[in-house]
């Protein structure tokens, strides 16, 4: 459980279309100071008597701690379902019911290491806040962003400035290298002598990133994306199989024990099945 989580009515301060996404800013008061890279928000959608009964979860892009009145929280929304579309259709001034910060955050090394941040689609959003924190710790930060097409790369200018190198891949070749992030990943890890990989994006990308990272013997932390009904740990819908320190595989809630997890602890490729040997499996 994130002990800083609070439920607030947050006013939309700005809502701008950026490529295929919407960059949205909310006034959240003092909770902004507790949010860490990797944490997420859960927002009610549809208004009052909506037929959409569940919250929508979004990774926090960044926050600005400006005290009770000025605290800001930003997210990047891909309007792909009716809930996220509703949200992106709301105008500044409108207030939403928002809970934040939720979940775990990326672990920050105490040493000035060489970090590689890997983002897929809007999964790049939380990586910019992370790169700022890493930079302040004296880390060298490289970044790879990938998407199916140029419009789905989220890479704001001020975010780009926080990294030492930026590699972009698109599957249709509309910008950067034609291909997937995992086509260039191994090469960058080796050339730049990377110590730790951080990733956020679709599960398939996280899985492939995890495989390459363990092959090359570098640590890998990833922010997973599972379907969540509550976001606060009470429904057990968001689980994924994780091997604990005791060696036991358990179905773990990604909303409170994630979204950021150690990539090597995840039993990948187990969508639609319970891995053998999981605690309590039949």
């Amino acid at each position, binding site marked *: *459980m994130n*002990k800083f*989580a609070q*439920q607030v009515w947050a006013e939309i301060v700005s809502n701008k279309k950026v490529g295929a996404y919407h960059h949205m800013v909310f006034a959240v008061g003092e909770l902004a100071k507790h949010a860490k890279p990797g944490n997420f928000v859960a927002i*009610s959608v549809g208004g009052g008597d909506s*037929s*959409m*009964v*569940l*919250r929508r979860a979004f990774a926090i892009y960044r926050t600005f701690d400006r005290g009770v009145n000025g605290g800001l929280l930003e997210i990047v929304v891909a309007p792909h379902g009716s809930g996220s579309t509703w949200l992106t259709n709301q105008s500044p001034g409108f207030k939403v*019911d928002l*809970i934040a910060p939720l979940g775990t955050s990326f672990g920050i090394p105490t040493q000035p290491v060489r970090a590689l941040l890997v983002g897929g689609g809007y999964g790049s959003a939380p990586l910019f806040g992370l790169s700022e924190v890493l930079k302040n710790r004296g880390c060298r930060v490289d970044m790879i962003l990938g998407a199916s097409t140029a419009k789905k790369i989220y890479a704001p200018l001020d975010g780009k400035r926080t990294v030492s190198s930026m590699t972009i891949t698109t599957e249709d070749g509309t910008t950067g290298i034609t291909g997937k992030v995992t086509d260039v990943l191994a090469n960058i890890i080796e050339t730049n002598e990377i110590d730790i990989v951080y990733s956020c994006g679709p599960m398939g990308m996280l899985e492939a990133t995890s495989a390459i990272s363990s092959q090359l013997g570098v640590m890998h932390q990833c922010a997973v994306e*599972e*379907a*969540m*009904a*509550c976001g*606060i*740990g*009470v*429904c*057990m*819908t*968001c*689980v*994924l199989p994780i091997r604990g320190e005791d060696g036991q595989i*358990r*179905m773990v809630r990604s909303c*409170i024990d994630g979204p950021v997890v150690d990539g090597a602890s995840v039993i990948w490729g*187990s*969508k*639609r*099945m*319970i891995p053998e040997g*999981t*605690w*309590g*499996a*039949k």
Partner: protein
Amino acid sequence: MFNFSTNVGGAEFSNPIFTASGCAGSGKELSQFFDISRLGAIVTKSIMIKPRSGRATPRMAETPSGMLNSIGLQGPGIDQFLAIDVAWLREQGVKIIVSIAGESVEDYAVLARKLRSVPGISALEVNISCPNVENRGQVFACHPKTARAAIEAVRRNVGGELPIIAKLTPDVTSIVEIAEEVIAAGADALALINTVLGMVIDTNTMRPKLAGKTGGLSGPAIRPIAVRAIYQIHEAMPHVKILGMGGVTSGRSALELILAGASAISVGTATFGDPTAAMKIKDELEKELIAHGFDSVREAVGYAHRDEGNL
């Protein structure tokens, strides 16, 4: 003075708003958002004898005014549950209703024996209606005989004191018939309703969306089914206390189930949309009851059944 207290199966509660089984985690998660001792009771997630991984993911699909779930009773097993979860809840000063689920009649007997001398429990909710099992034949509440056998096993092994609330499914031809069986078998009250069996097909993959294929439907979409089930049973057995649930999201919808015959309300899916839903519903319900001229919850229970002549 307005009297918000209620009684379910012989147990007294300070107010009629409970959490629904499987929708409140261990209680700890919600306590971050409100003081859980303000609940009438917390109903814990159905616990089985052994640890259970639950079903594979995806386990959830949002549906119009509701959701489909196939958690499959993930949990730590009764021993760890009693040692950790119940011990913690006891310290919070909240009334505890423990929900149990078994795969056989013998399981229910074992669970009842484990619980008979545990202090600080107000009642047992016996879940004989979980839809998330591999074999529909395992749903005890689907057949009068198996429903009776499971409740009898609990009654025989739990001793005389602890009230038994039997949780039923509306997915049967006659819920009244099942209700009569479980009351005859020794249940003190009924919990109505469990989720309704449903399915969602993903039109992109063109396969059932949930890994378990079917799931239990909950939320406002099933509220009319809950109201109907509660109404039918209250009509047939007006003396039997009912813990009502199914799509309660507001004071007004809680009142609807109470008017049908429920003495208390469990809040489930609404908590997923809003962690403080139970508290909002509690405050709204009190206002609704007062606005309708009731001096207590008890007066409103089953009020929709009064003769037309009294209108």
